[in-house]
């Protein structure tokens, strides 16, 4: 029922020094690609939600304490604590999943079910992405 969306790590780790339009386009087409290659998922869902996720990323980065985001080449994870990843990843994942499942339902009649799906999915994805982050993005 819920699948972890592992491709989100690529979107979240895009260099923040890139100009914002480029970031938007890249995440949009990544999401579109994911849509096209999944049989049972409606086309356009991933595109819309990953676009939303990346537009929230800089905000989240500001909120979690990193200043002047634009100047950094990469999201340097070695300098941050493990806890920071959680605060960075989870809201983004959660926002993405909310958008995704609510767009899939496209109505508020089964609100609790979609919300529950979003929560479960985001927990699942968060665990997966956290492990990936720790494993692959530290020096």
């Amino acid at each position, binding site marked *: 029922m819920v699948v972890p969306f592992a491709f989100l790590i690529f979107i979240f780790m895009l260099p923040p020094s890139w100009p914002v339009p480029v970031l938007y386009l890249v995440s949009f087409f990544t999401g579109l690609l994911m849509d096209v290659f999944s049989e049972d998922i*409606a086309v356009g869902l991933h595109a819309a939600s990953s676009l939303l996720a990346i537009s929230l990323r800089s905000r989240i980065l500001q909120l979690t304490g990193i200043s002047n985001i634009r100047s950094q080449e990469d999201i340097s994870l070695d300098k941050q604590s493990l806890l920071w990843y959680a605060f960075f990843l989870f809201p983004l994942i959660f926002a993405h999943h909310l958008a995704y499942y609510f767009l899939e339902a496209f109505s508020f009649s089964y609100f609790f079910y979609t919300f529950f799906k979003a929560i479960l999915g985001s927990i699942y994805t968060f665990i997966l992405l956290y492990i990936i982050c720790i494993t692959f993005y530290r020096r």
Partner: protein
Amino acid sequence: MLRLLSILSRFRNLILWLVLQLFAISLIVRMNDHQRHIFGNIMLEVSGDLHSQRYSFNRFLNLPAQNDSLIVQNRRLIQRNDSLRKRIQDYEARLLLTTTENPGLADGYEMDQGYRLIPCRAIHTSLNKSYNYIYLDKGSKDGVYENMGVISPQGIAGKVIRVSKNYSLALSAINLSFKLSAKLQGQDIPGVYEWEIDDPYHGYIDKVRTDATIEDNMKVVTSNVSTNFPEGYLVGTIRAADQKLEGSYYRLRMELATNFSQLNNLYLLEAVSKNELDSLSSGFIKE
């Protein structure tokens, strides 16, 4: 123009984001049935709302023209209503007349088949004069001729004395010049109906033989002597309390069957076989 572009370029990120999101959502809605269905419903609600507001505004602007057309239609409908109502009244009265429950027919008589009914209306009548006449709305173009009998559904009403193309004049039964040969029902004793002034609700049957027995509520009907009226049509009712029985013949007072203050549907009696009957006596002295 440059200034507009510079303002737009301040929001270039946002505009790009909006464009991409709208594109994504349009992809979702167009390519997926579930989402398209729901989206279609939402859009139907929104556009229905907008359309109905615009429609009511337009209707408000259109009110004078609508008003005029409604007035015209109203007038037409009122006229049609009137004519239909008249037709219904005619049919009802005619239906009543041609059945045996016709109140103008005395018991035991049936409507003579030798008479055809022409429905008409009293367009003018009077009640309080010595010589009352009834103006009828049918004339020679409707087949009316002189000496036709005029009946109401309750009883006799008069006799036509003058005919023009569209209208005719009838002597009312409450007219001093109106005389009719009548008889007492049951005993078949003949008499002459005539009217005395000042009482439009009562008349007299004169020259009744004194050996007639007078009972209360006895009916006076038309006899078969005149060809204007079929036999057995009601003229009036005799109340036993009113009578002064004296002299060599009786002059009986009766209550007239027709209510002359409410003359509505009247019928002209066309004697179908009149010409044939008249032709029988041609060549013979009639007086």
